[in-house]
């Protein structure tokens, strides 16, 4: 565990970058430091590997002051990933990744073997090993940055806005990759970002810092969305925190209906029976059970169903895997107001109305409120 113990960083000109900050960063989880520019998040991160020395207070790693060991030994035991990757442009990808093992005195062969192993782990093709950084895309470079940080298998990983400079699609891929790698490796990750969505997506714990380097709130992301500590945090979270909070409620609680589903080759009788239920629309699927679109029962003629004339079904959600947010999104996207639940292979497992989703949300809120009441947290909205 990393313990930041009332640390202050004051520069000679009097600027206070970090102001009496105390944080306990749990092992084997992702702790995100988030806040606007000038909130001291990067300074805090750099104090953990002593690239910045605190003016007051101390930082403990597993109970021992980090100043007790030689600074370069400390740094080699902490992976560091930086914005724009900061790769060594004059070294090949393989040698970039092998940097820290080489510093630790591994022989070249062993270091390169380890580097090759890591390329695979972060999803880089082995054909890139002999390339130079300029030959890689921004996303690939960032993967190399992560691989390089992991090369010596450090218990701690410090990440300073690692994904800020890549485009949103690549960023999403990198974020998911990081979560997957974290599932496998279980590092103690301290992650700095100015993007609250990234913080909520990645963080086990999120520390919101305000300008001047003061801690505004330190909580798991769901709690942050439910009960922001003050106006600053609420403002920083943005306007749709209610919707975003739904990401933390599982869709498995939804009861799906299977009655209003017909296959594209259904007989007139099947259409009549299914259409006789209390739902205004029927979902037509192909022969594999994948969704094609919605239609009113009266508009369907057996044997002559034209998939091109069906109403769009929005974006299906993976039942049990994705959250209530995905389910609600699917329902809002379809003009029928119904969301389509699918399994991992995209086959329909059932449909659910906005109304049912709404009830599930209220249920989840009630549960959340009960939990919050138990921890004496204040629930607003």
């Amino acid at each position: 565990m990393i313990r930041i113990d009332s640390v202050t960083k004051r520069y000679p000109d009097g600027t206070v970058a970090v102001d009496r900050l105390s944080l306990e960063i749990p092992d084997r989880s992702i702790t995100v430091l988030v806040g606007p520019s000038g909130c001291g998040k990067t300074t805090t991160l750099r104090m953990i590997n002593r690239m910045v020395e605190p003016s007051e207070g101390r930082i403990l790693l597993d109970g021992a002051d980090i100043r007790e060991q030689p600074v370069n030994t400390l740094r080699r035991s902490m992976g560091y990933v930086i914005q724009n990757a900061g790769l060594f442009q004059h070294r090949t990808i393989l040698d970039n990744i092998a940097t820290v093992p080489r510093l630790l005195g591994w022989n070249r062969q062993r270091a390169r073997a380890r580097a090759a192993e890591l390329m695979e782990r972060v999803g880089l093709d082995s054909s890139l090993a002999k390339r130079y950084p300029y030959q890689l895309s921004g996303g690939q470079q960032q993967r190399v940055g992560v691989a390089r940080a992991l090369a010596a298998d450090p218990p701690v990983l410090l990440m300073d806005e690692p994904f800020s400079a890549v485009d949103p699609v690549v960023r999403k891929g990198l974020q998911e990759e990081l979560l997957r790698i974290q599932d496998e490796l279980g590092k103690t990750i301290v992650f700095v970002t100015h993007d609250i969505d990234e913080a909520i997506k990645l963080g086990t714990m999120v520390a919101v810092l305000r300008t001047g380097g003061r801690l505004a709130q330190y909580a798991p992301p769901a709690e942050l969305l439910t009960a922001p500590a003050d106006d600053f945090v609420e403002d920083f979270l943005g306007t749709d925190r209610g919707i975003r909070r739904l990401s933390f409620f599982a869709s498995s609680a939804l009861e799906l209906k299977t009655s209003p589903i017909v296959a594209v080759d259904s007989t007139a009788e099947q259409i009549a029976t299914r259409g006789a239920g209390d739902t205004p629309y029927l979902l037509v699927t192909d022969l594999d059970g994948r969704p094609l679109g919605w239609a009113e029962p009266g508009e369907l003629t057996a044997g002559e169903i034209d998939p091109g004339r069906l109403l769009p079904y929005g974006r299906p959600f993976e039942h049990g895997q994705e959250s209530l947010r995905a389910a609600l999104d699917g329902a809002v996207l379809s003009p029928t107001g119904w969301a389509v639940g699918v399994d991992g292979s995209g086959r329909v497992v059932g449909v659910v109305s906005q109304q049912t989703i709404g009830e599930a949300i209220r249920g989840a809120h009630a549960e959340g409120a009960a939990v919050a009441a138990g921890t004496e947290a204040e629930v607003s909205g």
Partner: protein
Amino acid sequence: MNRFFDLPSDLQHSWFGLIGLHLREALLPVLAGLVVALPVAQLCVRFRWLYPPVLGLTTVLYAIPSLAFFVVLIDYTGQTELTVMIPLAVYSLVVLVPAIVDGVRSVPQETLAAATAMGFGPVRRYFQVQLPIAVPAIVAGLRVATVSSISLVSVGMLIGNQGALGNLLNDANIYHRPELAVNSVVTTAALAILADAALVLVRLVLTPWMPRGTRRVRRTRTATARPEPAAQPVLEDAVR
């Protein structure tokens, strides 16, 4: 034309001998300049306040005419090659120091931060990260210094046959053989071009990591502020 390579005996060298002499008198000073410039530039990078005065000093030294240098040096080093090479080494600093400083400073901040964060000490960081990345800028500086030095060697003629190919100019005058002057100018220019090409080759070999096709040639300030030295060695000498 058959008298083109028929050199007067007072030169005490064949044509190839003069070329060898010329290269030695031109390149050793650049090498010496590099050896001095590297630590000086590193000090300038480390202590920013040092850079402007150092730059001023190299410029002032560069402004001293070689004749004035000779007058002072000749008391100590006599009519030797060394008397020619010391000013040339001093002149090369005006190009090499800023080239190295710019090169080392051009290393991106995040690369330096990453190196520090991975546990590079300052010395290791300098030799394994900053210097290799500065190679293109350093070679660009070396190219200007080398070409300039090759053209300036000729001035050594003034202290008694220490100008290598430049001595041909004097002989052309004495013996009324203009082809010797042509020989001197053409050979000096060819040497400059070949030396420049060799340095480009060295950079290509040292920097396989640079994007091909879009290689940036770093032109130092002084390179554009002066006329192309190789093309006009005689004029240059006249000025000095």
